[in-house]
């Protein structure tokens, strides 16, 4: 029995998954990255192999991805999150033509050819607007749980227009909206719409297609996903655990690479 680990060392969270030699996702773990991504990835890996009752030596491959991929100790290879999210999304939804990943500190749109090969991608520039970090800050300003932001947005009467998407400026705008007693749901919907517009412009850069899969922690935000669907005129595939897709793709690449070499 061969085991393959994928570790997605992101800016906010670090996800580790374990797959068997048939590519089935058996165990997973998500930990907060904190200041030292090396320690977080080590912890995530130890916990996931602990769940399986394995040792690191039992792993055939450890493929690292994400912003901290080069600080994952024990990795057998490092692959960018673009390639890994594409691979993971195609494994879960084989018809995927467009992957929209909203991560902790960046967003990306990845365009796939039939068969899953990456043919183009676009990422937001060095700015947190519309990313996981953005929603974290906004949830705090709204004094709600991050998990509640999406469902709240879906209940909104209307979406409040926001004049600025810079995390710092949007936060103070949100604070003053709350002070003016604008319903929190409407503000949440406004934030989701504004973030979805950023995602749409990325998607347009690579070409919108009907078969869209949303990945990354942002896909846990139902308000954001709905706003993206509305703007793009599609119904998106959302995995049960979208924040694991990058790590899952990484593990699959480890498995395929091993098969290819064997």
């Amino acid at each position, binding site marked *: 029995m061969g085991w393959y680990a994928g570790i997605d060392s992101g800016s906010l969270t670090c996800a580790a998954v374990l797959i068997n030699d048939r590519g089935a996702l058996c165990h997973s773990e998500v930990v907060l990255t904190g200041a030292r991504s090396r320690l977080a990835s080590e912890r995530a890996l130890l916990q996931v192999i602990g769940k399986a009752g394995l040792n690191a030596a039992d792993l055939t491959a450890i493929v690292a991805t994400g912003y901290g991929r080069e600080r994952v100790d024990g990795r057998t290879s490092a692959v*960018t*999150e*673009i*390639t890994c999210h594409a691979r993971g999304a195609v494994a879960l939804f084989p018809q995927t033509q467009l992957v929209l990943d909203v991560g902790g500190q960046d967003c990306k749109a990845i365009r796939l050819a039939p068969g899953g090969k990456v043919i183009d*991608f676009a*990422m937001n520039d060095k700015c947190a607007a519309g990313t996981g970090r953005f929603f974290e800050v906004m949830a705090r300003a709204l004094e709600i749980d991050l998990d509640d932001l999406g469902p709240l947005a879906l209940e909104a009467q209307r979406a409040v227009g926001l004049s600025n998407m810079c995390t710092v400026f949007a936060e103070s705008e949100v604070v003053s909206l709350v002070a003016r007693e604008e319903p929190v749901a409407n503000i949440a919907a406004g934030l989701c719409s504004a973030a979805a517009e950023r995602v749409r412009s990325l998607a347009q850069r690579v070409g919108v297609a009907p078969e869209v899969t949303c990945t990354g922690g942002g896909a846990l935000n139902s308000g954001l996903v709905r706003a993206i669907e509305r703007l793009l005129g599609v119904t998106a595939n959302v995995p049960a655990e979208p924040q694991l897709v990058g790590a899952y793709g990484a593990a699959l690449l480890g498995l395929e690479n091993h098969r290819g070499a064997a």
Partner: protein
Amino acid sequence: MDELQYFREIVTTDRRERELAGYHGRVVGCYCNFVPEELLLACGAVPVRLCSGDAAAERAAEAILPRDLCAVAKSAAGRVQRGDGLCGRADLLILPTPCDAKKKLGPVLGQFKPVHVLDLPPRKESPSAQAFWKTQIRDLVPVIERLTGTPLTRAALRQAMDLINRRHRVFRRFLALRAADPPRITGQDALFVTQASFTDDVGRWTTQLEALCERLEQSPPPAPAVRPVRLLLTGAPLIWPNHKLIELAEADGARVVIDEFCSGTQRVYQPVELRETSLPALLDAVAEKCLLPTTCPCFVDGTDRLNRVQELATTHRVDGVVYHCLRLCALFEMEAQAMQQTLRARGLPMLSVSTDFSAEDRGQLQTRVEAFVEMLRG
């Protein structure tokens, strides 16, 4: 390899500054690729190109320039303001006016050094634009003659043109080695070679590059386990020490087999073409060489760069194109979309990245470039 080390030394150390400190003749600082080096050489001046990718100099210039200004302009000003290296040594600065930033840089540099501004036409194809430009070059002659005290002669200009054309010939030989499959030299090393020509003595640079070519031609070709992904780099210039994009592009085994930068291949790509040999005809030929081959997006019509990139992509059998946008240089960024569409229609993938001289976005940049290389590998 010693032959390569020479070029790195010229670019990264103060060797040229030390050499020229003891030189009694005139040193002329130049910007961009529009300054006729042949004319300067013929009058006995030493041309040195002072364009810079120095982030610290850029920040220093914020004392005298707006913060939201292109890094190339700011960095150039910062170095002159501080009197860095050859900027301190230069007796005169020649500043062409391709973009808004450079148009307004003259009086700023003029606070520290004598400046001669070379006006560029907004288009380069029309006869009136070329006539205008030739007048600009003719008007430069007495300025340089007064500076050096040496009148321009036909023989001296002819000799300088031969020197520059010899540089061009060895550079073409070098480009062929870079374009080989697998390439005999990395794009990073090639950028050191071209950027050493900014300040180096023309004859010595040429001789050194002949030696490097000889060495590369005689060495056994590298035999990489997998065929390297072949990239073409275009867009805003990478200038030492801002080489991060080419370093990242080649980090994963890919090779930049050709660049299209004004700070790279464009600088030494074209020979002067002669039809007549009178002094005015020679000057006109030099003027044409400084204007026509350049693909700077400062000109109204950008089709020549689209064509050049496609031509180089074909002749160099590249797998993909990386397009460098320098933040606050709208010109390159505005042309990026047309380039993307043109290349996409030919089935050639292009990655556009937007960055500046700072190191803080290295991680983000690395992810984009690495993902692009992974995509090209398939």
